[in-house]
């Protein structure tokens, strides 16, 4: 031993076959399982020595697991070390002077991610040199240093790794991006008008987009930023652009540290368990049988749910995966999931727990099934499939990403245009759905029936030191008055006089362009409009007041 220590120090590293590390990883996974089972059995044992040994085993296993995980980590330098050459060659080719700066090259990522991130990063670097940074003459004209700077930065943040690629080049010309998107028919003129700056940047990620005047053999190789984006998203990451015209552009990539162990939500449907990667999760909702019957509406047989005013397409896990026959309505759990740009609600029977799961690939025989991202072994030793949310959305036919973006922008532009209004949706009478412009409602109140007094054949309540006459809308429209214990009242004001419009239930407040059609409009209404896919009567509060002589 002594003789060894006196030798000249050698490289403290050794080369290890990756397959050996993978095998170690598997064995540690097994050890974790065995540990879990042992802990379960030991917890009920009266033998204290056994219990304390188990606890020690527990600690050692956890540390071993972390240690083996670390052996798979590699510094991002391994990808970055090719960039000085890429940038030098490319800048010479384009006649540009580019200085490359790197920060955080020792930031570590799992081997699989390091391997997969190389191509998208290279694409972005080439893109920055080719499109971002100007020629020395252009830079001089803009009052900048002759040589441009390309900065790569990597750092850990909240269990993820951020990678930034920023240049001090010409930045993104929002107008040119818009006109190019229009040319390519990617967006409509109305939509182009309404886009916010960051949404304009988002257009760059649409398939088929390129602002390059001519296709160069450098970055315009027909492979667009959309591919970069989808490659990064496949790793469970995200990418966004921050750009100031004339000042420079920053691409910011956020990726998980590892793909080997991910946090996931374990759910159940038809007695089977599935894991959903946490990155796709937006929120969870529980609906009981009654809510399932009422809150889940169907548009031509397709179930949807109104989530804070937006229609959310619903997908039942059991039917997408053809797990079994359709069943009678029952309590369900809804998981709102984000896949690319689309959002949808997944209906499952049970939600079990969130767990750190070890992702294992499926065999070659099953690679073709896009609905699964892999499989994992649960605490009880059984195998559970990991759902691929994007694949699932595709299988269920949830609207393609682009259409979704289009729809959202349309929604937003509508909000901004002058003829949109905030509408209050409510129910009056048994089935009739009505809306009233929110601006003609001063307040929403709830009165208990006991507070209602009768004066000269009219119902009134004392309200803020005044007498508020009540108008039962269902009566106005010739239906029976609902005998609820509490009255839902819309207080409508004209001048300094108020009238309380009694409705059966207040449903929602939405923003919508109001184009009522006179046809079929009853007295007291402005007509009907299609709101959220349902025909809705628009109440004319003034007219109602006239009808009851208020």
């Amino acid at each position, binding site marked *: 031993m002594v003789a060894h220590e006196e030798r000249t120090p050698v490289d403290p590293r050794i080369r290890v076959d990756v397959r050996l590390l993978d095998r170690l990883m598997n*064995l540690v996974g097994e050890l974790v399982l065995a540990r879990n089972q042992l802990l379960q059995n030991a917890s009920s044992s009266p033998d204290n020595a056994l219990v304390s040994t188990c606890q020690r085993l527990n600690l050692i296993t956890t540390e071993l697991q972390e240690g083996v995980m670390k052996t798979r980590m590699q510094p991002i330098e391994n990808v970055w070390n090719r960039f000085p050459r890429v940038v030098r060659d490319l800048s010479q080719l384009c006649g540009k002077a580019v200085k490359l700066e790197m920060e955080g090259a020792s930031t570590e990522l799992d081997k699989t991610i390091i391997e997969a991130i190389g191509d998208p990063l290279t694409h972005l670097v080439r893109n920055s040199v080719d499109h971002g940074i100007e020629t020395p003459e252009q830079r001089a004209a803009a009052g900048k240093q002759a040589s441009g700077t390309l900065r790569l930065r990597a750092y850990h943040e909240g269990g993820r790794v951020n990678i930034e690629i920023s240049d001090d080049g010409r930045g993104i010309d929002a107008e040119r991006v818009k006109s190019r998107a229009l040319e390519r028919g990617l967006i409509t003129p109305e939509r182009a008008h309404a886009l916010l700056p960051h949404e304009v940047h988002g257009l760059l990620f649409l398939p088929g987009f390129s602002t390059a005047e001519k296709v160069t053999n450098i970055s315009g190789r027909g492979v667009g930023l959309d591919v970069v984006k989808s490659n990064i998203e496949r790793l469970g990451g995200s990418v966004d652009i921050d750009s100031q015209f004339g000042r420079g552009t920053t691409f910011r990539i956020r990726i998980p540290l590892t793909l080997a162990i991910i946090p996931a939500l374990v759910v159940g449907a038809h007695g089977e368990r599935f894991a959903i990667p946490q990155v796709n999760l937006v929120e969870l909702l529980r609906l009981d049988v009654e809510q399932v019957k009422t809150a889940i509406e169907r548009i031509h047989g397709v179930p949807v749910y109104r989530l804070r005013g937006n229609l959310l397409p619903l997908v039942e896990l059991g039917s997408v*995966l053809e797990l079994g026959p359709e069943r009678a309505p029952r309590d369900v759990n809804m998981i709102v999931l984000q896949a690319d740009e689309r959002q949808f609600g997944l209906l499952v029977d049970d939600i079990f727990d969130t767990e750190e799961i070890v992702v294992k*690939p499926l065999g070659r025989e*099953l690679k073709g*099934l896009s609905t699964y991202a892999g499989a994992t072994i649960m605490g009880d030793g059984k195998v559970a499939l990991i759902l691929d949310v994007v694949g699932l959305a595709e299988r269920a036919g949830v609207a393609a990403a682009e259409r979704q973006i289009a729809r959202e922008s349309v929604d937003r532009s509508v909000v901004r245009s002058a003829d949109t209004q905030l509408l209050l949706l409510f129910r009056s009478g048994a089935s009739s759905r009505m809306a009233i412009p929110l601006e003609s409602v001063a307040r929403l109140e709830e009165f208990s029936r006991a507070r209602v007094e009768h004066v000269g054949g009219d119902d009134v309540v004392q309200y803020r030191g005044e007498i508020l006459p009540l108008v039962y809308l269902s009566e106005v429209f010739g239906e029976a008055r609902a005998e609820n214990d509490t009255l839902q009242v819309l207080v409508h004001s004209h001048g300094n006089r108020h009238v309380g419009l009694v409705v059966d239930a207040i449903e929602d407040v939405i923003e919508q362009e109001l184009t009522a059609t006179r046809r079929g409009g009853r007295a007291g209404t402005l007509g009907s409009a299609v709101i959220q896919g349902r025909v809705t009567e628009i109440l004319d509060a003034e007219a109602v007041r006239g009808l009851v002589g208020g």
Partner: protein
Amino acid sequence: MSVTTTSQLCTFTVDDLFFGVEVTKVQEVLRFQPMTRVPLAPGMISGLINLRGQIVTAVDLRACLGLAPRGDGEPPMNVVIRGSESSVSLLVDTIGDVIEVSSDSFEPPPSTMRAAHRHMIASICKLPRQLLLVLIPERVLLLTQASETAGRAAGSAR
């Protein structure tokens, strides 16, 4: 002129058929293992098995050969085949002995067998009391993959 060699075969039965697979290709033989079914997968894939931390796809040979499904009270045995990337388990009815056969007892499968099935058989070995079908496990997997691809094509054409 032919040189007689011998090979060792791991044998098993499926329905009334007697099969053999070269022992070098067999990783291990297991009793019935609990399986997790894979929704949307082709019918011949019975599920996934946890084999000491390795996830192994179980392929039902009965389904591959177009035979009637196994009865409820007859749990299948697993013949785990070593693959280049991952292992696959063939579900069979019963496990037999490892036998040694000489190459001169081999004959090609009869041309009257269904092509899809004949494709999986390397040769027929004439044992004194019965015939042994020497299976090519890779071909079984190939067939599984092919049917899976076909299934997907049909699915997307809908």
